[in-house]
């Protein structure tokens, strides 16, 4: 089956002018919307999506149909649909491809999903760093309004929908669904404590659904081809794990790093990581071997070279000790790349992107960065690795010390890097700090306090 896999999400991205309504309609675009609005009720759509087993493509893999069913049944409205296009996970660019090269596909999925959730307003939360996606999406929305696919009484069905693009200001935390909601409301994107979940009280304190761009694109194909088609692709649930709903459908994988042909590829869920690297991305550069692979965006952690046969479905990377499938952003590190550099890069990213609300994440990510910077500067100690592990094990939703999952994302690269590559890191510390690696005493900070000390002191008192 895998051999005969034909891309659907990326089917038309190679066509010239694929972003225009004309090209999209010529390939049968918006026919699904017409049929759905004419023949199906919103609950039919929810049911179809639920049967399909579609799980959110944004990282957490929550079943989409289930999420929609949490909306209060007899709510007087408004209900909001937020499209999460704040694709900030390092190594991930599949939403960008969809929005830049096939925006109408996203839009059609959005309209169908809004119909299913009875939303009359949809906000596309688009990260600021995607100017082309913004222009194309804006243009697509304009074309859709002109063609009657958006606005009041869409295609004579009585269903109305307005779509607005909200551009973020470039913060990773805005991809967290309640952070995104706060940001649309015009506030600082500090994730909310849950409960209440957004389905009950979200944007402007109304029921809200937040879905990823790729999820919505999948909805369009599920409604076109049926839930059975969707379930024919991917991996069925693990019979030994009653909580595994299975991983169905096609998924966009973004392969980057030390490969010969980096890019965004569509493959069925469950494809092995090795296949993605060897077949889709043309192998590791310069004939080298992979040392480590990030399976699904930086926050998921690392797979070691022995774990490359891990199936890329929602549970595969978890079994290999990673956070999960994440966004499907595969980053390949070849054998010449030092793990300490990976650690540094990852710690720097998360220390920079921590929103600063919860103490353990705000301070823990900055502390981890300081330790790694110090190790890189040749002043590491072996106890630092244990300290890093302790910091990483104590931040996140799973120990319960933070509100949102960013801290989990910050913790997993540290945990997997140290647990899977401890020998290399110990060698590195011993090599760079031959005199002091055994020490256990507190040492002066390396970066002389540039964390949290800006130079903007003003108006001295007295």
């Amino acid at each position, binding site marked *: 089956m895998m051999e005969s896999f034909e891309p659907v999400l990326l089917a038309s991205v190679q066509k010239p002018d694929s972003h225009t309504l004309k090209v999209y309609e010529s390939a049968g675009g918006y026919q699904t919307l017409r049929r759905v609005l004419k023949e199906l009720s919103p609950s039919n759509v929810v049911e179809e999506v639920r049967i399909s087993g579609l799980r959110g493509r944004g990282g957490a893999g929550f079943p989409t149909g289930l999420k929609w069913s949490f909306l209060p049944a007899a709510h007087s409205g408004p209900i909001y649909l937020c499209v999460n296009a704040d694709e900030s996970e390092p190594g991930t660019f599949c939403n960008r491809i969809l929005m830049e090269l096939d925006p109408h596909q996203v839009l059609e999925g959005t309209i169908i999903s809004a119909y299913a959730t009875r939303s009359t307003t949809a906000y596309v939360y688009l990260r600021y760093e995607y100017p082309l996606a913004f222009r194309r999406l804006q243009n697509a929305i304009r074309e859709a309004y002109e063609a009657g696919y958006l606005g009041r009484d869409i295609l004579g069905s009585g269903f109305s929908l307005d779509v607005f693009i909200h551009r973020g200001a470039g*913060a990773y935390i805005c991809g967290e669904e309640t952070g995104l909601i706060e940001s649309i409301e015009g506030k*600082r994107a*500090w994730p909310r*404590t849950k409960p209440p979940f957004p389905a009950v009280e979200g944007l402007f304190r109304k029921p809200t659904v937040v879905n990823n761009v790729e999820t919505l694109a999948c909805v369009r194909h599920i409604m076109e081809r049926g839930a059975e088609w969707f379930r024919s692709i991917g991996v069925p649930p693990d019979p030994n794990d009653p909580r595994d709903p299975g991983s169905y459908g096609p998924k966009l994988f973004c392969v980057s790093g030390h490969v010969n042909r980096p890019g965004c590829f569509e493959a069925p869920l469950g494809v092995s990581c090795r296949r993605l690297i060897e077949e889709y991305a043309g192998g590791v550069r310069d004939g080298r071997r992979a040392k480590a692979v990030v399976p699904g965006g930086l926050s998921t952690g690392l797979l070691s070279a022995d774990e490359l046969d891990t199936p890329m479905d929602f549970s595969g990377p978890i079994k290999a000790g990673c956070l999960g499938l994440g966004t499907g952003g595969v980053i390949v590190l070849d054998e010449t790349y030092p793990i300490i550099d990976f650690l540094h890069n990852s710690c720097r990213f998360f*220390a*920079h*992107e*921590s*929103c*600063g*609300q*919860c*103490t*353990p994440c*705000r*301070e*823990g*990510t*900055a*502390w981890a960065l*300081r*330790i790694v910077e*110090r190790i890189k500067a040749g002043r590491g100690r072996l106890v630092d690795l244990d*300290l890093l592990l302790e910091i990483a094990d*104590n931040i996140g*939703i*799973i*120990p*319960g*010390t*933070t*509100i949102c999952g960013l801290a989990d994302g910050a913790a997993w690269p540290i945990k997997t890097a140290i647990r899977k590559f401890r020998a290399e890191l110990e060698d590195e510390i011993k090599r760079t700090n031959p005199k002091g690696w055994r020490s256990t005493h*507190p*040492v*002066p*900070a*390396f970066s*002389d*306090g540039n*964390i*949290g*000390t*800006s130079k903007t*002191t*003003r*108006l*001295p*008192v007295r």
Partner: protein
Amino acid sequence: MGIVIVDGKEVEIGPHERLNGIQAAARAGIEIPHYCWHPGLSVVASCRMCLVEVGTRDPKTGQVVMLPKLVPACNTPAKDGTVFVTNSEKVAHARAMVEEDLLLRHPIDCPICDKAGECRLQDYHFKYGQSERRAELQPFTSRKRDIGDVVLFVDRCIMCTRCVRFTREITGTSELLVVNRGAHEEIDILPELPLNNKLSGNVVDLCPVGALADKDFLYKQRVWYLRRKPSVCALCATGCSIWIEENQDHIYRIKPRENPFVNHWWICNEGRYGYPFVHHPQRLRGVWRRDNQGLRQINWPGVLSQIVEKIQQARRPALCLSPFLTNEEAYLACRWIKNIHPGSVISLGPIPQQGDDERFPGGFVISAEKCPNRLGVEAVAYSFEQPPMNFDELLAGARNSEIDTIIILGGYVKPWVDAEQAATLRRTGFLIVTDLFPTPLTDRADLVFGMAAYPEHEGSYVNRRHRLQWLTRAVRPPLGSRCLGSIFWELNGMSGLYQPRDVLAEMARTIPYFSAATGRIPEHGVDLRVNQLAEQETSSERSTM
């Protein structure tokens, strides 16, 4: 009725009570440490100091099922069957970690920090922290910034955001905000928009660490030298419950005292910074008697018998009560003058008004009526004379010489009488004035003596909502001045020291308005209307600050 289990202890929760884990545990006598949660502000659950283990007890089987992860107690409702575990190793570890995290970038400059001694970070670190520093040694930093009414020590901040929420939810002014992200985060103001509102001093009380400092108190006194006395603010009719904090008869600061019926957790800046008049060098001290050369200071012995003599000789003496007197002082004065001269009249002094009542989004009210006890003094005056004269009638009486001797009991904080009124009152035969400060009236009086200000006397005030609250004496009156209560106690021929509680008990028996004020006055005061209108005020939740 619900049962919540905290560390194995069962706590009862009322049917309509909505408590969180911290409040339920406090009821069991167990402290759950917290920084960001405050009963008067919204819940953000971001400091993560109150993490506890939470579970539920099955009502039928009694089996307890615990959640696998830690949960912030501030954001966990205490319902029937909720189980909180606050003393497990897991919880202790989480608290130690948060403490360690908070000290990573904290300057630990306790020796020069105003908050030292009453700092949550200090206290919790001793209780829940670890003794060893594992983090890198940071260079010492201490950046401070003038953000308006208070000073911000940026590096001491632990980002609990209580101050930010206060300006958004209670004052509605939103001056404070969080800038930057992650470990670079700071509290700040927008340029040209300083923290400047009438409740701004409360952010200093809210700050669990030394980040926000009171400009008035900064570097004046270490907090462990201060003694605090429960009292009532006398600067407007709201009558906020306060703590007066003093050392050696000098007041250093005023702090709000939690009272769910009056001011909750807040006081206004007017009350907080309004105390310095108590120590003003121009306060009237001692007794002054007019002779041929003008006013001359005399000694106390013989003064009281002179007053009695003057009143007894008078044709029609008048007693003027200011709304700054305590109920007990007003009562003793009225009782005395009515006893020794049945023809005497009782009059009420002018009521200071300033603007309109100011209401804040959080429910706090600053009254336009700038005196503490109009209702109480009026009730006392009405019980002796129906109706008592008002100030204009007193002036008219003095003008047409109907009244020949006047005793004016002042105590006004701000100037209250002009030269013209003073000259009118001077037309009487004999004028006795007590006040805090020299006024045109004291310049013209025959007998003048200084009196006690609100931190200096004991007694009760009735606020604008008929709540009677008790003041305790925090500092002594200036040398030579006596509290009015003790003067009239002596004039009434009562033996021993002035006992305001006995006076209030007598008033509760004799004046219907005060009938609810029997027995010991509770710390939140008594609503005097309960016996009259049976009007119930909604009781707010008691909680730990």
